[in-house]
């Protein structure tokens, strides 16, 4: 037992002396060793940085898709492209397009596996209280909105079925809007004015999805969801009407559109129904829409696509990083071959003094590994710093994963071994007598 421990500590000591010797030999040519390391430093650094950027980008994409809900299918009204072209000169043209109340009802009744159908009318109006006025989205919807869109009721309540049936003039507003309209008062006791009609505030809502932007009334830009007023769908129908008129951007006359619903969100009972339901919904809508006036967005598919994209992205980035590591490795091998030639006589001397071939192999292999792992460690340090700088300077999200650091470190070690073996065995195979005679 005692002998065994002393033996293993002896081996550790030996390895330590070989590593120390390697470092000593490398320090003899500091510039050369540094330049050689640079290849590995860049390689390892690029592995970590690229993976961090890729991970960050796909994380952002996946998060925003996940917010849409993976068991949801989103259908949006689209202004058909051909009509919008020639309507420019026509002053009194009324454009009818988009999803209808009937579409929503048909989906609810015919597509199997549907849990909820959430219709939404989204109009843009100015909302007033007292002297304050804020441009808002007026969203006419049903009481299930918070469950499907993932919004929280902070105070009071959301709309209820009775409000809808009786076309009550009530509304729920987002927290951000409440802060703007009611800096001093309690909003729950007040009413806001939209288009000359008063709506009593019954609840405060916080949208989880506030960074998301939603198109409305053919306008693709949309406001942040922070300034939202939710009213019962039937109230929206009766108070605001189906017809939306707005001033043309060219300045001449008015443009009129008739859109019943701007969006229908279909929530399935489970994600496994989503793909079948998507094609059924498309078939169903196609039968009643002769224009191409809607789009179907399936977050689940987007998510899968994002995952695929991420995999391809990782492969591409990985290959680039691998190539740079390969180049670094070739650089190391080149230098080690030169070193072996330069130190031929030392090799001969060591052989004469009792070194076996494998002692020489070990010596040069350790030297290469010290070089590559040294480069690897510096590369990791730089590689961990750079993503922070990127995030700080560009607001691009980066995520350094533990396995990418591990991978980079492993690769640098593997590069050292892979590109060190050949020079080291060349050194070991030298004939001692010829090596001793070498000038």
């Amino acid at each position, binding site marked *: 037992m005692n002998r065994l421990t002393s033996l293993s500590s002896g081996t550790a000591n030996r390895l330590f002396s070989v590593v120390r010797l390697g470092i*000593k030999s490398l320090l003899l040519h500091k510039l050369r060793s540094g330049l050689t390391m640079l290849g590995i430093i860049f390689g390892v650094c690029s592995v970590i940085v690229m993976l961090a950027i890729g991970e960050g980008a796909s994380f952002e994409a996946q998060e925003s898709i996940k917010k849409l809900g993976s068991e949801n299918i989103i259908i949006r009204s689209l202004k058909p492209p051909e009509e919008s072209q020639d309507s420019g000169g026509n002053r009194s043209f009324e454009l009818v397009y988009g999803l209808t109340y009937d579409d929503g009802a048909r989906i609810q009744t015919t597509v199997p596996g549907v849990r909820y159908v959430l219709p939404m009318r989204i109009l843009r109006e100015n909302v007033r209280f007292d002297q304050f006025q804020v441009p808002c989205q007026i969203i006419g919807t049903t009481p299930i909105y918070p469950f499907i869109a993932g919004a929280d009721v902070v105070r009071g309540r959301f709309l209820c079925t009775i409000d809808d049936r009786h076309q009550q003039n009530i509304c729920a507003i987002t927290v951000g809007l409440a802060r703007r309209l009611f800096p001093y008062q309690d909003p729950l006791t007040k009413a806001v004015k939209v288009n000359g009609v008063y709506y009593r505030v019954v609840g405060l809502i916080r949208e989880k999805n506030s960074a998301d932007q939603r198109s409305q009334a053919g306008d693709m830009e949309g406001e942040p969801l922070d300034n939202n007023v939710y009213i019962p769908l039937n109230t929206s129908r009766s108070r605001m009407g189906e017809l939306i008129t707005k001033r043309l951007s060219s300045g001449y006359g008015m443009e009129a559109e008739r859109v019943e619903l701007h969006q229908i969100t279909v929530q399935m009972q489970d994600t496994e129904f989503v793909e079948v339901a998507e094609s059924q919904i498309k078939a169903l809508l196609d039968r009643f829409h002769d224009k191409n006036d809607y789009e179907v967005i399936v977050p689940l598919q987007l998510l899968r696509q994002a995952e695929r994209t991420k995999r391809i992205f990782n492969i591409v980035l990985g290959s680039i990083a691998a190539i740079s590591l390969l180049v670094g490795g070739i650089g190391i091998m080149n230098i080690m071959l030169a070193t072996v030639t330069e130190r031929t006589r030392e090799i*001969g*001397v060591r052989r004469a003094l009792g070194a076996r071939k494998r002692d020489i192999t070990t010596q040069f292999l350790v030297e290469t590994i010290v070089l590559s792992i040294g480069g690897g460690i510096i590369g990791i340090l730089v590689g961990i710093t750079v993503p922070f700088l990127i995030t700080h300077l560009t607001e691009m999200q980066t995520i350094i994963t533990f396995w990418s650091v591990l991978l980079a470190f492993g690769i640098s070690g593997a590069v050292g071994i892979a590109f060190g073996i050949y020079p080291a065995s060349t050194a070991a195979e030298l004939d001692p007598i010829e090596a001793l005679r070498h000038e």
Partner: protein
Amino acid sequence: MSRNDIIRTKGMVKRYLLGGQEPKIKIGEDIRAIPQELLIKDETQVLALRGVDILIRNGEYVAIMGPSGSGKSTMLSILGCLDRPTSGEYFLGGENVATMTDDELSEIRGRRIGFIFQSYNLISQLTVIENIQVPLFYQGKDLSETWDRCVELADLVGLADRQEHRPNQLSGGQQQRVAIARSLANDPLMILADEPTGNLDSSTGQEILDLIDRLNADGKTILLVTHDNAVAKRAHRVIHMKDGLIDREVNNRQPTTAS
């Protein structure tokens, strides 16, 4: 074979093949009989040793002399286990070297032989003490345990105050002293020196030779190649070589010793 014999060779031949061709002259029993003129004309091979019988006893001091190209260095390489004879026998301390593997040769070099080279051959990135340690390292010794011994050896060759110096900070004579200390590190059976004073001026050379004399006086077996008669005079015995053969051996009845 007496236990006192350190080296015994019989019919030792070393042939270098040139250009990978089949040699014209085959190695047989009568290799010594082939006339030199015929060998010189043979462009397929060089017979550096043509059948050498040597016997060296423990504690002897033997010098090897001979014209350039007579095979002195070749013989020293084989005796030092850096190379194997093409044919013939070589026993070192009772072990047959001619049939050993590469690893066994390495081991026997490290354990039983001390080398002193004409051009010192110290390892440039190591200090004096570390250079002396190298043979011990390859014997698997723990370096911290051997430190004291190496300091003693540095002291013995008169370099007690140069322990942490590197080879390029030392004079030629000092470097050769380190090499001598290094050759002693493993307490070898014998020390082989190929023209150890060849790169030194005569007075420094004298100092080195005095040191070697002292090692011999302490009981070390010395085998030394030289071109210098004055050097050879210090040895007990001088082996003269010619064309890969031992020409003659001369015993020195009164070797000049260190004054």
